[in-house]
């Protein structure tokens, strides 16, 4: 079965969605990610959607779900790299990405995650590469 790979980078989980997702792939990613947050105790999830040419209400809901579920498990979610045409379409469609933070690109997203975790007063112990 196809799966979207989830990479672990220090305290964060990194997902790059490179193909247009059909529904089952998206729901599998949702449950895989929540499982990974649980297993690794990750403090942040970064999802790169720069390769997605469209985000419809289903995909929007999946992203929102991932954000809300991770939040309950004490992890922040940042969606990065949304294409301008996708952003325009999402807003016209009436879809707000609730529960997730957004950033322009992976670099800015990483900064945002680090900020979020820092401001929660969490200590970044065990200096893995990637975390400062």
């Amino acid at each position, binding site marked *: 079965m196809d799966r979207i790979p989830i990479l672990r980078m220090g305290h964060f989980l990194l997902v790059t969605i490179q193909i247009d997702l*059909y*529904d089952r792939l998206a729901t599998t990613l949702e449950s895989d990610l929540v499982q990974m947050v649980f297993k690794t105790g990750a403090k942040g999830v970064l999802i790169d959607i720069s390769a997605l040419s*469209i985000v419809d209400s289903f995909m929007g809901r999946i992203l929102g779900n991932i954000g809300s579920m991770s939040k309950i498990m004490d992890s922040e979610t940042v969606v990065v790299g949304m294409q301008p*045409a996708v952003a*325009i*379409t999402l807003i*016209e*469609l*009436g879809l707000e990405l609730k529960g997730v933070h957004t950033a322009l690109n992976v670099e800015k997203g990483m900064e945002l995650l680090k900020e979020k975790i820092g401001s929660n007063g969490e200590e970044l112990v065990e200096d893995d590469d990637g975390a400062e």
Partner: protein
Amino acid sequence: MMVLNKDTMRIEKEQDVVPLRNRVKEFAVRIGMGLVNQTKLITAASELVRNMLKYAGGGSVLIEAVSQGRDTGIRLTFADKGPGIKDVLLAMKDGYSSGKSLGIGLPGTKRLVNEFDIKSTVGEGTTVIILKWKNG
């Protein structure tokens, strides 16, 4: 209105959604539709085809490149033989949904295209026709 080119696709399972989106994109690119309008059209198609799968278990989509005067556009016809919609006006209201989706399906989709027409008969099925002009 003149039809320049057309194709029909059967939709039976969720894996058919991505190929449909790709086919619609090919048609839109061929008439020179810009990226934002392409994205709106494909997103609208994606919403409608999902509805069709969810409520009717599938159906067919007719993709047409059309022209009227100097305008060219893409017209999509989604036809299913599902249970039909009891109250189309209600279904077109923002925030309404009979399923467990976000309830932005039909009205949201309508905002993405230039023309939107829906006909439904309970027990017979639903047909939705949308049109997006190249420069619309």
